[in-house]
């Protein structure tokens, strides 16, 4: 049994919120660079140059990478031998989001009521927290500052089992074509396969946490990732929907067993502002 003070979680989350918004992870920057070299039109090259310059400015001049500094999504792997002292874990995380967004001059982007939208919570809380118990006495926190524009283009389908891989590719390609430049391509696509209605969506989001371009461990699923990526890039949507380059930098897929009557498929669309940070306490 290990004791961890809840204030430590608050501090760490505050730091992650700022870090995520000012420092685009190196794997994403690298993918943008590679994409810039592969671009075939001047407009695509210009857009990708702007994004690379934007990442540099965010880090060096300390300006948030994007004005949509995201909804804070926190995946927690809580060691079952941890005894948390102080506040409950949700309060501790939200305290960190509040502190991180305020001190970091990040935009409060949360309205208290989805219908009556008059009240902004003012501090970007509440965060979306996904908690999982794991063996051990550590706490692992992954934070994603997830933008609304790309999240809006996400989708979930309850396909027919016999639709198979082809049905999955078709659904995803259709959605990306429809989305065009709206979600700020080049994109990273999180795909959740199987489980049920809510599990598929969660898998899709979780898949985005993987280091960019790292394939699924299962060779068959890795092949499906490549197939989806090739099909999405064949749409010609391109950077900002202007063609001349890649629509997606990577496809990350996670799967889970499911009911014999179902084939749930979720697509979580991530823009180039793939702001993820992790830490282990």
């Amino acid at each position, binding site marked *: 049994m290990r004791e961890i003070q809840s204030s430590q979680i608050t501090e760490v989350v505050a730091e992650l919120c700022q870090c995520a918004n000012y420092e685009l992870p190196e794997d994403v920057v690298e993918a943008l660079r590679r994409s810039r070299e592969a671009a075939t039109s001047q407009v695509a090259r210009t857009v990708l140059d702007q994004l690379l310059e934007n990442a540099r400015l965010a880090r060096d001049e300390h300006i948030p990478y994007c004005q949509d500094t995201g909804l804070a999504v926190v995946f927690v792997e809580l060691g079952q031998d941890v005894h948390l002292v102080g506040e409950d874990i949700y309060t501790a995380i939200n305290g960190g989001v509040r502190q991180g967004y305020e001190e970091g001059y990040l*935009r409060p*982007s949360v309205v208290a009521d989805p219908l009556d939208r008059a009240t902004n919570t003012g501090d970007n809380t509440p965060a979306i927290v996904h908690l999982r118990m794991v063996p051990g006495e550590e706490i692992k926190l992954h934070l994603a500052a997830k933008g609304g524009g790309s999240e809006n283009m996400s989708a979930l389908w309850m396909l027919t089992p016999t639709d198979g891989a082809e049905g999955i590719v078709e659904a995803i390609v259709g959605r990306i074509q429809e989305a065009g430049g709206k979600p700020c391509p080049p994109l990273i696509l999180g795909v959740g396969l199987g489980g049920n209605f809510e599990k598929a969506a969660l898998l899709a989001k979780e898949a985005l946490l993987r280091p960019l371009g790292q394939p699924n461990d299962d060779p068959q699923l890795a092949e499906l990732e490549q197939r989806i990526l090739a099909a999405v890039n064949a749409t010609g949507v391109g950077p900002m929907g202007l063609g001349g380059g890649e629509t997606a930098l990577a496809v990350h897929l996670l799967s889970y067993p499911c009911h014999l009557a179902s084939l749930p498929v979720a697509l979580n669309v991530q*823009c180039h502002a793939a702001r993820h940070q992790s830490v282990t306490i």
Partner: protein
Amino acid sequence: MPSESEARQIRLPLTADVIVQLRAGDSVRLSGAIYTARDAAHQRLISALEAGQQLPIDLAGSVIYYCGPTPAPSERVIGAAGPTTSSRMDTFAPRLYAAGVQATIGKGQRALQVRQACRKHGCLYLIATGGAGALLSLFITQAQVVGYADLGPEAIRKLTVAEFPVLVGYDAHGGSIFAGDEDLD
């Protein structure tokens, strides 16, 4: 898109003779005053227009930027300030073009009715690079809240921009920069 050197410099306000020369895909640098407004501000502007009430800004000849910036630290004019998805303002845009707005700035494709409205009223839809909030903020030299302050990041701000980089998305002749868009008519 033409390289930087080929970008056309435009002083705001836009005039009809400049608008008519621009074509979808043209690279443009804007200098002058523009106003930010996004979802909530649009709803209020439209309600006020319908009710015949006075608006916080003069729409005639104006440029509307779909943007909700991050808070500015004391040493800066504004925080990150890139465009938001334009399609969410599609239902409002034709009404605002009819009321005198000359151009809107945002990101992504829009409904057909917006392209039609641009042609009908001789207006433009301009696009800025989505997600380049840090970079675009450097082209903003002044910012001031001028309406609906209670909306926080969604308040209307008057921005002074200097050589703000945009592309012509929809021109006044029905043309579109987006490959999938079919011809009007």
